[in-house]
């Protein structure tokens, strides 16, 4: 039986007609939006209210554990990722040997992005706020950007944001998928340093 017969086209034609929303729709959406914090002021609110369903397969956890062992023993792991065909990004994340305070642990995030003008780290630990002052990476030369920031003990998801617009996962870390929006993030487990 053919999918594209005349009856289906007739049905589709009927269904393509406009379905206007009620006159108050725009006002209702905007009222909702105004109740939310402005993006430039995102902070704790977003962290507390953004739904976060972490879905990690056993294989991912295995990779995560292996990555942590590797990070602890080598200090840094470098990898490359092809980005927009023109930029090469290299990234690593590792724990320094000392923890500044409990329960937050100081975690170093490193991204090598030669073409970047700005790099920040966003994650569930900072409300996915790319403007969070503690998570702005500094350029260390040679395209290497890094920041060391306090992260609470536990399982977290994070990503790098390049030039305020491009989200880049950490290729050295396991990825998890946000089921709501279908986007991948990197996973990290922060443990108390002995």
């Amino acid at each position, binding site marked *: 039986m053919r*999918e594209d017969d005349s009856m289906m086209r007739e049905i*589709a034609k009927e269904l393509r007609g406009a379905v206007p929303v009620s006159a108050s729709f725009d006002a209702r959406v905007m009222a909702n939006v105004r109740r939310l914090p402005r993006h430039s002021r995102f902070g704790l609110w977003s962290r507390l209210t953004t739904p976060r369903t972490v879905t990690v397969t056993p294989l991912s956890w295995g990779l995560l554990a292996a990555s942590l062992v590797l990070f602890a023993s080598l200090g840094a792991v470098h990898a490359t990722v092809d980005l927009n065909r023109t930029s090469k990004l290299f990234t690593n994340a590792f724990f320094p040997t000392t923890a500044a305070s409990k329960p937050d642990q100081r975690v170093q995030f490193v991204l090598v992005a030669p073409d970047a003008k700005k790099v920040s780290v966003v994650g569930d630990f900072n409300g996915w706020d790319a403007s969070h002052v503690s998570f702005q990476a500094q350029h260390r030369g040679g395209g290497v950007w890094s920041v060391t920031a306090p992260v609470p003990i536990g399982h977290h998801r994070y990503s790098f944001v390049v030039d305020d617009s491009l989200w880049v996962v950490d290729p050295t870390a396991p990825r998890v998928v946000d089921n709501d929006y279908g986007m991948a993030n990197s996973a990290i487990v922060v443990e108390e340093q002995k």
Partner: protein
Amino acid sequence: MEGSSDAVIVARVLRGDVEVFRVLVERYRDRYARYAFHMLGNREDAEEALQDAFTRAYRSLARCEDPERFGAWLFRILLNRCRTMGARRGRRARTFVVDEVALLEAAEEHPAEQAAWREEIDRALQRLRADQREAFLLKYVEDLGYDEMSLLTGVGVSALKMRVMRACERLRELLSEVHNA
């Protein structure tokens, strides 16, 4: 701002200009209301799903990887909201939906006019399985290719083709008598 690209508007909103978000609402609400309405079967649920999708999009705007394709990203959020609402409503109303449809059918024995034909289509659409209805709407009404549909839904192309085919078969079954009258 009305003529600006999605990326420009998204950048403005991310810099704190909340009111500019209205341009995106005006740009996408009608087309996406159509999908939500056909998927959920009534205006109230459709507007709730769409409103929720816009609100979620605003809240997660910094996570929109390609602001130039804000519309596609928003559509994906809406598709998920419709799935969630449809499943919730299905659990709540499955026991009486069939009876309601039967009553409506009994009340209209000779739908010969265009408006009645349209009503029959809406009714038949709601009698499809949700996954088949979704695939049919994306293919025939939103006019998407199977690759795009696969990216959007996370379902393989073969499975989508099967769903569309089943949806067409069922619609023929439900509508052929009315259509030929």
